[in-house]
């Protein structure tokens, strides 16, 4: 690619189970915060890529009232209806085409207070079969997946508790996180109630309200607008069948496919050593090892070893989700974009107590669908290269 694209700035809300204001005000405040941070107005943005979901918004064409609060009045605007990380990918392509120099990506949902994410998921089922039969919901599908991984590698539930405990502790040092506990232990997680065995409450994502905005620019423009641009080095995405029965749920071939292409674009040959930090969209504790292993960050079936040896801790060999990940916050439609924002903080040295020392290359991940049917990967770097 001739052009380079970088992230100039990013903002996110303090995520909560009820943000307590209308969506339009949440978006307006968010984008104004970004404008003030960068020192621009809405007229400095060439293109707007929004991301929200009609079912969550309870509105046909969810963006009709989102355009003006984000400043898109009389501007180029479009909407990606997937995970927010895909909106970032589309915005990057738009800049790469040479037609735009800057693009603002805004993703949001009120999945905590307005509409239950489990329902959003139910509407995703094939209406001619799975939805009619009524046997699958997001939680039991998650439980199938967890069980599949445990059976494949002969593990008990302890690794789920350990993962959630680590993420809850990370959440305690992330000012934006919804759920957290600074002294969380596996025993504490194991004391939460079962939803669908083996999944307990604290193995599952919390219903979250929130939004995230990321400003992208072409290389030259990014250097003008900020001191530390974060460079987008590679990305891709891939998808599997929606038939759970036809999938090997303990692994994620679509993540593998997406990662291969993203690594190739970014010139990464040894991900486990070259990537300094990863923010993973795991809606359930067991999804983190499944996705990380497919990303090549850990060996297959290593969840228990990783937890016992603290490898995924912020201070570990391969820090995973220093933000607390999906166990602390999962903003439907925005989760992947929030991961990108968290990675940017790491790469610009603004992650505070969650800072991974000398983080130079970060991986952000996003997903959609039952048992992470669709996966997207973005590789970010603090160095232009």
């Amino acid at each position, binding site marked *: 690619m001739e052009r380079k694209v970088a992230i100039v700035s990013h903002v996110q809300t303090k995520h909560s189970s009820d943000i307590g*204001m*209308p*969506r*339009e*005000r949440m978006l*307006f405040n968010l984008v*104004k915060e970004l*404008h003030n941070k960068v020192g621009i*107005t*809405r007229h400095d943005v060439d293109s707007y890529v929004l991301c929200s979901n009609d*079912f969550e918004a*309870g509105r046909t064409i969810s963006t009709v009232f989102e355009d*003006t*609060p984000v*400043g898109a*009045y009389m501007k180029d605007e479009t909407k990606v209806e997937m995970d927010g990380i895909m909106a970032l990918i589309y915005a990057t392509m738009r800049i790469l085409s040479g037609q735009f120099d800057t693009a603002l990506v805004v993703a949001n949902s*009120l999945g905590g*207070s*307005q*509409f*239950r994410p489990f*329902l959003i998921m139910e*509407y995703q089922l094939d*209406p*001619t079969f799975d*939805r*009619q039969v009524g046997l699958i919901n997001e939680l039991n599908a998650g439980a199938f997946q967890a069980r599949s991984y445990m059976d494949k590698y002969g593990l008990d539930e302890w690794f789920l508790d350990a993962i959630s405990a680590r993420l809850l502790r990370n959440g305690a040092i992330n000012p934006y996180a919804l759920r957290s506990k600074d002294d969380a232990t596996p025993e504490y997680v194991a004391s939460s109630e079962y939803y669908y065995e083996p999944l307990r409450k604290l193995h599952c994502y919390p219903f979250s309200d929130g939004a995230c905005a990321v400003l992208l620019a072409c290389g030259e423009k990014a250097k003008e607008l900020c001191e530390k641009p974060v460079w987008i080095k590679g990305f891709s995405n891939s998808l599997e069948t929606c038939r759970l029965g036809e999938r090997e749920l303990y692994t994620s071939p679509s993540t593998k496919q997406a990662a291969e292409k993203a690594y190739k674009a970014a010139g990464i040959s040894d991900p486990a050593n070259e990537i300094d930090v990863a923010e993973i969209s795991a809606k359930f504790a067991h999804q983190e090892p499944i996705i990380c292993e497919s990303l090549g960050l850990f060996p297959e079936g290593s969840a228990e070893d990783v937890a016992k040896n603290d490898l995924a801790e912020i201070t570990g060999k391969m820090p995973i989700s220093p933000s607390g990940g999906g166990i602390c916050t999962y903003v439907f439609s925005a989760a992947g974009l929030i991961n990108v924002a968290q990675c940017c903080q790491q790469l610009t040295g603004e992650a505070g107590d969650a800072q991974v020392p000398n983080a130079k290359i970060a991986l952000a991940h996003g997903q959609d669908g039952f048992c992470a049917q669709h996966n997207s990967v973005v590789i970010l770097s603090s160095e232009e290269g």
Partner: protein
Amino acid sequence: MAFQMGEETRTFPITWDVSANKYKIESRGLRILTEGMKDKKIRGIRCHECDTVYIPGPFYCRKCHIEIDEVVEVKDTGTVMSFAVDMADIRGNPLPEKRISAMIKLDDCDAWFIGTVENMDWKDAKVGMRVKSIWVDEPQGKFSDIDHFEPI
């Protein structure tokens, strides 16, 4: 290419339950407007940057992208920007009486809204005609406080 309807076809009823939504709506502008209507006044919000007057007043100006809060009172007379004459309902069934439903821009403001215009033959209605609000006798702070509009 031959096109044939399938023999083995089943229809599955599914509803989209929007009642599960708990919508959050910005209501300052609506409150200012409806409270004023109790006293037969119409109030909106002006943008201090571009002077656009909105009714109901939003919390921000979409042109200037700034927060706005200057409450202003506008007249209850206005001009018809466009209108439609309703002759059938949403499903196409004829209405018993034809009804002029007009886009009315009130004087001193930039916003328009829809209101019914009565006491005139629909065939005489014109874009640009002047109308006034006809209030109910005892307003309660509701949109129904303006019963209808009439040509001046």
